[in-house]
């Protein structure tokens, strides 16, 4: 039984990581991407802890009176602490950015945000933005009866 627990837990952690990564890719909504990141980081932290895990060992705390028993490896647990702290910091920053983007662009859809950003970055750099369906780069009028309505700004 004990031989299977380690790999099983490890698979669990890897599953969490996979969910996080794939979740981030499939979602087009900014907030969902941040949530996916949270899950991914949880998965990795779990994986890191499991690197030092032993089935038949106890928590690595030396109490004065108790005899030394085989203990779990303490180092990954220390590492995980830092990793968690870093993760939280990055996630917090991500959320503030999501709020700022929502205020500035009025939308949380990644495709639209990217398109708007592209126009602004190009304007900041001084060049013209690359063509989009609304504003073709070549400046030639779009075929069809009437020009498209001006996109909501």
């Amino acid at each position, binding site marked *: 039984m004990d031989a299977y627990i380690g790999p099983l837990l490890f698979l669990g952690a890897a599953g969490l990581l996979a969910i996080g*990564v*794939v979740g981030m*890719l499939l979602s087009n909504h900014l907030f969902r991407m941040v949530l996916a990141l949270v899950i991914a980081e949880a998965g990795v932290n779990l994986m890191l802890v499991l690197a030092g895990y032993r089935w038949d060992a106890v928590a690595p705390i030396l109490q004065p009176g108790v005899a030394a028993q085989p203990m779990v490896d303490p180092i990954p647990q220390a590492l995980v602490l830092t990793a968690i702290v870093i993760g939280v910091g990055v996630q917090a920053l991500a959320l503030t950015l999501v709020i700022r983007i929502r205020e500035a662009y009025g939308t949380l859809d*990644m*495709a639209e945000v*990217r398109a708007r950003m592209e126009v602004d970055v190009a304007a900041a750099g001084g060049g013209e933005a*690359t063509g989009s369906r609304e504003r073709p780069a070549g400046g030639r009028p779009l075929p069809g009866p009437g020009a498209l309505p001006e996109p909501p700004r």
Partner: protein
Amino acid sequence: MTHLDLLLLVALINLPVAWWLAGGATRRRLLALPYGLMLGMLLYMDPGATWDSGLSWVFLGQSLSWRLDGLGWFFALPTIGAALAAAAYSSGEWGEDFAGAGGSMGWLQLALAANVFAMLVLLAAGDLLTLFIGWELVSWAGLPLMVLAGGAAVGAGIRYITYAMGGGMAVLLGVVLVYVWTGSLVPADFMAVLPTLASWQVGLLVALFFGGFGVKMALLPFHLWQAPAYGLSVGPAAAFLGAISSRMGLFAMALVLVKFITLERLVDLTVIPGLLDSRDVLAWVAAFTIILPTYTALKQNDARLLLAWHGIGQGGYMVLGLVMGDAMGSAGGLLHVFNYATNQAVLLLAVFAVMHRTGTADLNRMGGLIVRMPLSFLALLIGIIGLAGLPPMNGFVSKWLVYRSLVLEGEPLLFLAAIIGTLGTILSVYKLIHNIFLGQLRVEHEDIREAPWSMTGPMLVLCAVIVVTGTMPGLVLGVVADAQQAIGLAVPDYHLGGVTSPAGGLDMLWLNGVIMAGFAVGAVLFYGFGGRTKRVHQLDNYAGGHFLTADVRYQYSDNFYPGLMHHIGGWYRGSFQWLEGALISVVDLLATALRGFYHQAQPAAWVLFTITLGFAWAVLP
């Protein structure tokens, strides 16, 4: 501090000196002095000997060394000569006119001096790495000289440097491969190892070096950049570039293909067994380079572009002669470098003298200038006779040598290609001289004067050089023989008048003497026996009964050879422009695809893609 060091030092010091001299109107007169000094120093050095240089660095595990042998000396002569003519030409009224019109004389002279220095560094290269360094310097030094005229010339310059760097990179790959395959870049070592290389390796090296140097020589597939780049540049710059700049490619080709890889190795590198070996491929590239640009020149309507296109065509003769490899052919190819440099310099200087006076180089807006600018006419006449390769001038000697070697080597189709090129040249140079100097003089050109002495002087000196080296080719053949020996080729037994050989020789002293005697007889017959001639005005002309007035433009200049164009007109489809356009659109397509990659909404997808691909690759054996 050997002679070669001195020469290189003077060329280097000439950079600031030229910039300073170009500054003041009075100092401008002395512009030609440094080049005169360099020419003197060069003539003092005996072309037969090999001049080593004191400076040599060991860097990156490579030794950089400089030495000037016969081949380098032979190419240095027209380089400094052309620079001297260009500097003298620009030091007079043309310089004031150019500076007055907002052009920067300082940059022009600095660029010219930089070009000469870069070319001397290339010509004195002691090993392959120095050759490449000199090659890159020459490629880059040409750029400022081309773009000085601004406007269209800048676009042509950018196109040139892209081609040149393409060629440069091919040469760099060749140098690196030689270093890796033979372990060294010093000629003495790698020439010993070269014969042991496999044929595909030597084939690749030949392709890289011929392609790389061919870009500078504007051989066929890479010739589109040269005409606008040289034609549209500023007056004396165009003359210098047209005369010698692209011949550096021939020097490097002679050094690498003929001396290092040797023509024998080229002959037994078969491309199509039994039918075509690599030397034939090179010869046919040269042959087509003779024909196509010459007939493109025929259709040009701008005098400068017409001459620039001829520059490309004549380059084909030089490569053809060199690749033939026998004594006569290689002598003809190398001699044509010198002859053509003088012809092209005179022609371009004359066209720019006309442009200086009339303000235009458009062949359809000139005519009848012989009455106003006789000296320029004489210079252009001697230049076109030399360019077409007709007897009294030096162009004939080098072309005769190339033809002789083609006839006796048994190459009928190559001989035919060369002759087609010559005939095309004769037709187009007549169009040049007719549209500029002959025919009806235009109303607006009636009061222009002959070009100033500072411009006609250099032109007439070059004309004298053409006539003298035409009558006594032995003078130059001596230096050509040293160059041939430097790269291990047989030397024809030459004498002052020309060449003697069992299969029919040439003696220009007698030939020119007989031609001049013939002209004398003709003159005696014409002036002695005929009645007194009456000079008439140009409008007093047969016009089928109509009365000619000045406002009717009675001149034939456009669509000059309708009969010929009826047949070959259809062939001008610009297939090479289409090829270049196709290449650019492929690059554009790829670039747009790449930019699309950087505009995708979900870049993180690629992280997952790379990881899964990596794991699969890691797990699978």
